[in-house]
């Protein structure tokens, strides 16, 4: 009956796979001439008509699947058992409130970033391949959000790692390939830590089907509580890899600078959230929060999360490469969410869910901005962005709004989620973390202001021309390079095409507006939190 909720999973997967297979098909035909797409190191330009058709197809598939995904998510609780892996292990989809929430923001961001990439990917080339994997990952993510039991979730978690890897290595440089492998192996390492826990949970839980409040069977557990705690901690660490939790955060700053900006945007905004979702499902829907409350696992988890919040911000503050800075920022912000979850209190969970949503929009907006800077004037480092606001004020305004939201300045959205996170920490009766948490969050917010706002400030107010001697020399060099180049730079340096600006504006607007009118969302998140605790 509810089989149609599989449409948003299979439609993009099939379309994406078809795109990739078709590319290979043409490659075979062209092999005599030696002109193969992807064969050559450089991107092979596709003809304009072909591109238009490609964009139309991808756009249509994306739009239709997103519509179906939203329809499925908001039409009440539905479930489908696809097939049985083994007698007691079905591949089973069920849409609950959490899944609906995650699918919603995933779909919005995915469509917006998709539109943005129609323009952006022109300068990266190999569009067919990019969009093929882009669609694949979307289908896998929807499946991940709809997963109704732990094994299904694990299956799509691994598939997500595998299918998103080609997005990272898109430009095929040596660094990109190495970064992609690093991303893949970190993810796999995390996934196997998670699997380790799943084995134990399978033994000690009544069922692996997600049930609010957990399904742990204490009778079965008997004396083995200590062992299971280790297993649960392994799962938190393992799925935390995707969420960039220390000590396994290093893939983020490596993968983001080399990946195309739209890929970075969805990696940071959405795929990181898959790690969050997995941890959330494990703790609140299988193990049950009561099992780890007050144990060393909770303490270690909170400490790691707080440490990551602080270290991430600090590293971001020190980082000069713009996209790397944003990547460290993701490390820090994702751990806000994990910290919220680790508190095991209603306000904490509410805050974590809110921050997942807000951060998805904010971080994609920030990465889209970084992409625009690269696309329009090839600038990747923060100090090169001086005075950029003169050339593209709209872009920088969008960036500024998103930045304000991330710092948590009221009334932008980040404020709301951080408020709940701090409140959760104070309520949660977690000893020293009750006050340490809010303090770290506050310091991190200051650092966030420190690493994001200077871009705005210097972008709009570059100061006098005579800065450091080095810059002076550079300016002189630029002047010598001749009138033509300068004109070319100016020409390319303007506001981006609407196809890029509109998605950015939508993301930034959502980041602010959700803060202004948060009522319904808060209520929704609080309902989930109340159900699982």
């Amino acid at each position, binding site marked *: 009956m509810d089989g149609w909720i599989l449409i948003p999973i299979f439609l993009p997967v099939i379309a994406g796979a078809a795109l990739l297979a078709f590319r290979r098909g043409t*490659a075979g035909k062209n092999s005599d001439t030696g002109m193969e797409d992807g064969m050559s190191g450089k991107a092979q330009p596709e003809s304009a008509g072909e591109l238009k058709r490609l964009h139309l197809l991808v756009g249509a598939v994306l739009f239709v699947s997103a519509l179906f995904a939203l329809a499925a998510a908001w039409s009440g609780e539905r479930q489908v058992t696809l097939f049985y*892996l083994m007698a007691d292990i079905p591949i089973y989809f069920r849409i609950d409130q959490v899944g609906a929430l995650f699918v919603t923001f995933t779909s919005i961001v995915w469509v917006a970033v998709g539109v943005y990439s129609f323009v952006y990917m022109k300068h990266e080339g190999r569009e067919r391949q990019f969009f093929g994997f882009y669609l694949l990952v979307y289908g896998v993510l929807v499946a991940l959000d709809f997963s109704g039991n732990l094994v299904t979730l694990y299956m799509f978690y691994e*598939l997500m790692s595998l299918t998103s890897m080609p997005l990272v290595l898109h430009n*095929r440089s*040596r660094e990109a390939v190495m970064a992609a*492998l690093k991303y893949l192996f970190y993810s796999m390492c995390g996934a196997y830590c998670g699997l380790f826990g799943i*084995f*134990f949970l399978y033994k000690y839980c009544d069922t692996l089907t997600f049930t609010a409040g957990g399904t742990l069977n204490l009778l079965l557990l008997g004396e083995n509580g200590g*062992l299971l705690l280790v297993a649960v901690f392994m799962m938190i660490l393992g799925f935390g890899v995707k969420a960039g939790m220390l000590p396994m955060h290093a893939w983020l700053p490596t993968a983001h600078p080399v990946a195309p900006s739209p890929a970075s945007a969805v990696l940071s905004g959405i795929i990181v959230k898959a790690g969050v979702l997995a941890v959330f499902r494990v703790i609140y829907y299988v193990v049950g929060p009561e099992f780890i409350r007050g144990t060393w696992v909770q303490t270690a988890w909170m400490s790691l999360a707080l440490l990551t919040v602080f270290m991430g911000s600090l590293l971001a503050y020190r980082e000069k490469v713009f996209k790397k800075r944003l990547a460290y920022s993701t490390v820090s912000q994702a751990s806000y969410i994990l910290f919220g979850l680790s508190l095991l209190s209603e306000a904490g969970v509410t805050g974590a869910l809110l921050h997942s949503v807000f951060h998805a929009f904010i971080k994609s907006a920030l990465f889209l901005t970084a992409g625009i800077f690269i696309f329009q004037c090839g600038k990747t480092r923060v100090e090169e962005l001086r005075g950029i606001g003169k050339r593209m004020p709209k872009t920088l305004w969008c960036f500024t709004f998103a930045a304000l939201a991330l710092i948590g300045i009221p009334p932008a959205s980040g404020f709301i989620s951080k408020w709940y996170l701090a409140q959760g920490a104070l309520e949660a009766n977690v000893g020293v973390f009750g006050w340490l948490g809010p303090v770290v969050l506050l310091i991190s917010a200051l650092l966030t202001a420190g690493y994001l706002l200077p871009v705005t400030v210097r972008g709009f107010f570059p100061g006098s021309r005579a800065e450091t001697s080095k810059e002076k020399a550079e300016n002189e060099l630029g002047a010598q390079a001749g009138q033509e180049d300068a004109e070319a730079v100016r020409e390319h340096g303007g506001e981006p095409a609407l196809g890029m600006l509109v998605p950015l504006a939508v993301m930034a607007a959502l980041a602010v507006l959700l803060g202004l009118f948060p009522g319904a969302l808060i209520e929704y998140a609080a309902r989930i939190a109340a159900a699982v605790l």
Partner: protein
Amino acid sequence: MNAIVMVFVVLFPMAAGVLVPVLPFKNRTRMMIYIEGAVLFNSVLVFAMLLHQPREAFVLLKFTGNLSMSFRLDGLGTVFAAIVSVLWPLATLYAFEYMKQEGHEKIFFMFYTITYGVTLGIALAEDLVTMYCFYEMLSLVTLPLIMHTLSREAILASRTYLYYSMGGAAFAFIGVIFILIYGTTADFVPGGVLDTARVGSPGLLLLVYLLCFLGFSVKAALWPFSSWLPKAGVAPTPVTALLHAVAVVKAGAFTTMRVTYYSFGADFVRGTWVQSVLLCLTVFTIVYGCSRALKETHLKRRLAWSTVSNLSYILFGVALMTPLGLLGALCHMVFHAVMKICAFFCAGAVIHQTGKNYIYELDGIGYRMPKVFAAFTVSAMALMGVPGLCGFISKWKLVQAALESENSLACVGVAALLISALLTAIYMLSVSVRAFFPGGNFDPAGLEGGKDPNWMMLLPLAVFVAVMIGFGLHAQPLVRALESVAAGV
């Protein structure tokens, strides 16, 4: 169905193989048709026999006293015979194409076909003595296959193989003797045949069991007896793929299952120091094989090390000494056969089409041979244990058995399995990534020749991929069948 069929399927390939160099074939195609026809006919017979499950035994020879060469089909034998008889025709088909460039085809196919019969002999043996005979025979008839190229390297490798196998068989023989003395019968009986009245103090017998297990596990490349397997990678790919990933090495695993669950009996060993030793060795080999695979840059040798590791998954299941452990071991025996033969065939296809042996030469080759590398990637993911492919099922069953056994070393084994899975991801996927996503400075002109091979090589690959996905998504019937086999012990 007459029990004589059992003897026929063992002897027929041997006879057919011996006739290959003798018969006057007009051309190569005739020879191909003859061999493939014989192998296919035999496989069909085996399947007919497996479906009818003849219960009675058939005594071929009586040596003396209670020593005889006799055959009987039971659950465990069914599993092994089924694996072998499915894979052999496909591998033979692949070998026709592959062996074109290797020469000495008649000799090769003679031994290749004989090996089929010998392997079935191991599967169908009714008692320990018969199995031992065929086990020795297997070492001898596969020897010429390893030294096929007659290069110095090949001869050295075959010598190593011979010494290891013979040494292992000698140790195993001690076990055979003790079973003849202390057992009620030499036949295989689920649960073991040890006569408790005669055993007295089990100390010596445990040691003998250990020696016997280690002796048979030489073929299954348990550390420290594993180095022959990667060396034997010099053999032509059909040999490495079918024999060194399936028939020979699985015969090693199969014989350890026989002595453990059908001769000595798992109850006898469970909880003793011998079990701890075996668990330690298998767990170590699981990680050791993967690490060596990671270090290796020669594609076939990398796959061989991976086999070492995966075989120890099976031995680990056996060493758990529980029916669940045997179930996990059987699952992995079946699934690993398909996954690894597929990976080897892909490596062979690369060698056949381009002559490239080393992984660093494979940049961008996925664009020339997309179908082969698609198959390779699927088998890589299956070996890693991605859910939805068959490797996940067997790992799940193994881990479940390990956790149920309440043995602390078994929990270490679970960790080892996962570490091994991660290493597998690294050493397999880095090949796929290199093939499909070469670095930016990649020069397409340097990639002369090489495209997807013809249908004789692709058909087996397609079958294997279908099997991996099919069993990955719907393993229930197979698992239930294996459960009934394992439940007997």
